[in-house]
């Protein structure tokens, strides 16, 4: 398997061109193996999850607001939380689904032609890229000034609690992990991995737009030398195939029965009081109506 594609320029110098598309297959295989491996572990090694999953699936239903329930201001105990707790604002949900749609369009237009499904992909690709950039700029502003930015910060206790959750999930004795705030470490790490890959494709994607004709700015393919352009293509490609693997795992978890309450919350914005109490520490994430 090759990692990069090289070629010789007219002066006989070896130049980096892009990543090898073998890496796309590697990302797809990694995603499939991860999903398959997790399904096997879930069935064989985490039998407790099966029961939890069924129970969770049975509980999943759109949450109905109970306006009579008292609203906690800060740090309330879970039993004082409203019947449904607001997890994602409308802005957050719109961002998520806009970004998702743009991301799927980008991956389809990028990789389907490589898999043999041919169509004029380039214009659709860069337009979807601009929508992705706009949605992420909105998210940055929204997260900075409206949302709780600290919700995705990784604290010193996060790794310890993640290890304890894993240890107990495979049936070992160990200390009780503390409940996380709004997001456990797994979610935070996933967010940061997507952020890194997302910035990778966005920044290099904007640079690559200078190589094609768009109505946005004058074309200038000569702003970098060919070796630098090769690295731009490599970063774009690596980030993109990384996103393939990340999205496979994300979609997989989103459709797992025990995680559907989280998926629902990305649609209607709320989780039930029971889920809030079961999965979150009110001291670290205050319930809001």
């Amino acid at each position: 398997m090759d990692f990069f594609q090289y070629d010789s320029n007219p002066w006989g110098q070896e130049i980096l061109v892009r990543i090898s598309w073998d890496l796309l297959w590697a990302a797809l295989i990694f995603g499939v193996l991860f999903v398959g491996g997790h399904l096997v572990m879930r069935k064989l090694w985490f039998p407790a999850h099966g029961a939890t999953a069924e129970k969770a699936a049975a509980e999943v239903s759109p949450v109905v607001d109970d306006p009579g329930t008292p609203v906690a201001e800060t740090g309330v105990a879970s039993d004082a939380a409203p019947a449904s707790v607001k997890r994602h604002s409308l802005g957050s949900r719109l961002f998520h689904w806009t970004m998702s749609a743009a991301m799927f369009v980008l991956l389809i237009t990028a990789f389907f032609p490589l898999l043999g499904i041919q169509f004029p992909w380039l214009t659709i690709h860069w337009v979807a890229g601009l929508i992705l950039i706009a949605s992420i700029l909105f998210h940055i502003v929204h997260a900075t000034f409206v949302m709780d930015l600290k919700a995705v910060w990784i604290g010193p206790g996060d790794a310890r609690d993640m290890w304890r959750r894993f240890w107990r999930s495979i049936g070992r004795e160990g200390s009780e992990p503390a409940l996380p705030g709004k997001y456990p470490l797994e979610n935070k790490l996933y967010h940061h991995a997507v952020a890194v890959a997302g910035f990778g494709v966005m920044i290099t994607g904007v640079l690559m737009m200078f190589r094609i004709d768009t109505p946005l700015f004058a074309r200038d393919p000569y702003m970098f030398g060919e070796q630098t352009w090769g690295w731009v293509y490599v970063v774009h490609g690596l980030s993109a195939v990384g996103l393939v693997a990340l999205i496979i795992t994300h979609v997989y978890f989103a459709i797992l029965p025990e995680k559907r309450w989280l998926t629902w919350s990305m649609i209607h914005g709320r989780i039930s009081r029971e889920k809030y109490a079961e999965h979150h520490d009110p001291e670290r994430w205050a319930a809001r109506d």
Partner: protein
Amino acid sequence: MAIIRDMMAAFELFQPASIDETVDLLGRFDDGWVLAGGLDSFEWFKMRHRRPRVVIDVSGVEELKGIRDSDGGLEIGAMTTLTEIVTNETIRQRFGVLSTAAYAVATPQIRNQGTIGGNISQDTRCWYYRGGWPCYRDGGNICYADTPTSMNREHCIFGASRCVAVNPSDTAPALIALDAKIVVRSGGSERVFDAEDFFIGPSTDITRMTVLKPGDLVTAVRIPAEWADSAFYFEKARDRQSWDFPLVNVATAIKTSGGTIQDIRLAVNAVAPYPMRLTRVEDQLRGQPINEDVALAAGEMAIQGAHLLRQNAYKVPLLRNLVKRAIRDAEVQ
């Protein structure tokens, strides 16, 4: 280091006797190179920019040769030579635009050897690409023909998407004007493409000029009867009248009634990476009388949206005038 030319790299040669054998070989060797007349292929081989492991010479496949009647139209085998097309009486009398276009290809010697299948499947003549430079079309990430100092006089004014090479076929616009169908065999299946859909641009696949993928074989070109005996026009502008690729060529088929255009098909080539059917111009021309003003308006419409490179601005008036003549001077053979 000296560049070796005229000495081909070794390859394994197969000479099948039937379409089924050819398709079977193409299925066995995914990098099998189909050799028709060899006029495009041998240049690649001798320049050593293409080094196929397996070459499948289809010159012995009789099923691929000849011109046959088909539902009032014609079926032309892919290995039919351009000379046979030029000299075929039915084509000359009923589908004259194809005869004229085939006659415009290169020289008598090349027309004796070149085939209709090869002519529509040939690769672009961009010399950066043909010279082995690692451009987009060659799998790289740059177009050497589209730089501030590039030699791009022959390159495209429409349809560029990173690559600015043009399709050089003379018969392609004539086939589009005749609403021809291209028959492609692959494995056990047969697909039939409208001629205009047979060609693809770099926005679809920057490394190919046609829909043909490894394993595909053009077996025939079918010309329906619908446009037989129409008024036709073909013209090719080139640097050397004796032998050259087109700078711009144009083909049109017009059905008229009392001096009015009832229906029309109009195609041009060498202005885009694929032969372009000018459907917007066609739409405006239907129902119009054939005269100088209408022809001039068609020419003006044809050049709308042209995107110029450093050295190819001349193609704009050339295209405008060729389209104008294609409307004004089309005539029944």
